[in-house]
């Protein structure tokens, strides 16, 4: 392993026949960083993670994980890697304990954290004795988290890790991530849920249609996030010109209008809009798919220094 970045992607491209899954993706994740990988479903997140873990061969470009090629140096990378797939599939006839035993035997490494992780995630011995075919989705996901972290890997790659977890277990999971970061572990967290990434990650990459949209710090991301302003008019005149606010591309439905406004301009926009005969107004953070990605719809790749 090198002392350089934990993950380095240079022009990564993955094609499935004529379909491009990931297109010229370049990205660097430093050692000890908790890094978010954000994008809507089908954006190419899972494909990227599979290239990182050596499951997929890149069509073009270079992938380095812990300074090594995850395919040609698989036997040197994999011992230091913990991975939770996005769609966790287990052998249904094995019990939870047998599953963890099998995966640790394949890992060929001690599992110093298994007991602690099982305790904290509520996987009791009785639960672990049952075949995983009878587990709920949340239970499977807990088992997936344990198998990914039980050997205390240097790099943890998590694809949609909170899917199926109840809020209490999600809290425990985020605490675990915080501890991993404090211990100097590198975490790559893929998600389509913006608050989840904001809560845990120092930096975030946004990917859409297989292309990198931006890489930003979470603070910068929060700053950039749009607010959705909804106004209702009571005069029955329907759509009308909104002056300067027209630049936010208002979306009319009868007497109601919706605008996505950058946070720094919300107050000014409201002042101007409320000079009109408004009957009701709401302001809320926009959802990822509707607003955040919209902000970057035409944006070139940007990366913070």
């Amino acid at each position, binding site marked *: 392993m090198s002392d350089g970045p934990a993950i380095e992607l240079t022009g990564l491209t993955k094609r499935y026949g004529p379909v491009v899954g990931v297109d010229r993706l370049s990205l660097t994740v430093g050692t000890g960083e908790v890094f978010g990988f954000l994008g809507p479903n089908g954006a190419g997140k899972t494909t990227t993670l599979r290239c990182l873990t*050596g499951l997929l061969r890149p069509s073009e470009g270079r992938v380095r994980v812990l300074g090594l090629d995850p395919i040609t140096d698989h036997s040197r990378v994999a011992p230091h890697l913990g991975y939770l*797939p996005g769609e966790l599939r287990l052998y249904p006839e094995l019990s939870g304990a047998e599953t963890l035993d099998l*995966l640790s035997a394949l890992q060929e490494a001690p599992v110093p954290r298994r007991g602690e992780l099982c305790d904290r995630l509520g996987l009791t011995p009785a639960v672990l004795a049952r075949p995983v075919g009878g587990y709920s989705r949340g239970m499977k996901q807990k088992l997936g988290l344990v198998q990914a972290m039980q050997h205390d890997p240097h790099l943890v790659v998590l694809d949609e890790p909170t899917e199926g977890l109840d809020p209490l277990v999600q809290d425990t999971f985020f605490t675990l991530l915080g501890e991993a970061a404090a211990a100097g572990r590198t975490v790559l967290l893929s998600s389509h849920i913006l608050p989840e990434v904001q809560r845990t990650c120092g930096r975030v990459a946004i990917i859409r249609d297989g292309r990198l949209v931006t890489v930003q710090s979470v603070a910068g991301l929060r700053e950039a996030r749009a607010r959705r302003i909804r106004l209702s008019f009571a005069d029955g005149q329907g759509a009308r010109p909104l002056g300067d606010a027209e630049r936010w591309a208002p979306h009319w439905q009868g007497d109601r209008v919706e605008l996505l406004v950058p946070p720094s301009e919300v107050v000014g926009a409201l002042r101007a809009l409320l000079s009109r005969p408004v009957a009701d107004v709401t302001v809320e953070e926009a959802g990822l798919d509707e607003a955040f990605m919209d902000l970057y719809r035409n944006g070139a790749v940007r990366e913070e220094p």
Partner: protein
Amino acid sequence: MKGQWPLLWLALYRRRRMLAALIIGMVVFEALIVVVANTISPGQLFSAGGKGPPSAYRAFSGSSGGVSIASYPGLLGAGLTHPFWIAMQLTAIGSLAAAAVAADVESGTVELVMVRPVSRTRLLAERTAALVLAALALNLAATLTVAAGVVLSPDIHRAVPIGGVFAAGVMGLGFALCLIGPAMAVSAAGRRRAQVIGATIAIGAVGFAVNFIALAWGPAAPLRFLSPFHYYAPGDALAEGGVLWPQLGILVGTGVLGILLAHLLLRRRDLAP
């Protein structure tokens, strides 16, 4: 085994009930063949119309030489080439070969296995070993059952040396290896369990049909060299009392070539659902 060869253990553990059922089925079936052979002599069994069986019936006696089904070696050989025997072999091979790679890709479990320090060569080696062990168990069950029958029946024992029974068992394992190789190659390249099972059944069924047609119809005679059943000749092994080494070499060689092809295919492919 669980700690040292976890992938081998997993393959056998997941199919343990099926394998147990197949082994029991094999024992019962071969015992039935021995009882039939011991009750009615093969000559009587096949000469009710005053004529012997057609020469193409050698396909059913497991002979590529001159062993007639109307003989003890031929009848016992028929038990080792019967469609029921073939079906049991194909079930075990198709199922385990499918589970080797393609089924893991189809179900997505391959991700959990292959992100660990498991080389593709090791995956293939442990899964192939599981198949060979399963085939060994099935053929051993058949061989020991027939051997017990031969030892217990003086009439059969006079016509069939006990060494021939074990030689036929070795040929059976060679036949299984001959199918394991191509089945593993299909699994190494495939993404669906059904592809592997279908290909295995096709190789077995088409192979048997080609051999039978080649024996029954003169112009098609050269085609017999394409069929594994031309080389898998338990009737001849039973009659001669020894392993037919050239034929065994071809069967095993085909299997090894298939596994090498599987290795090449597996090294190059993506391993994700």
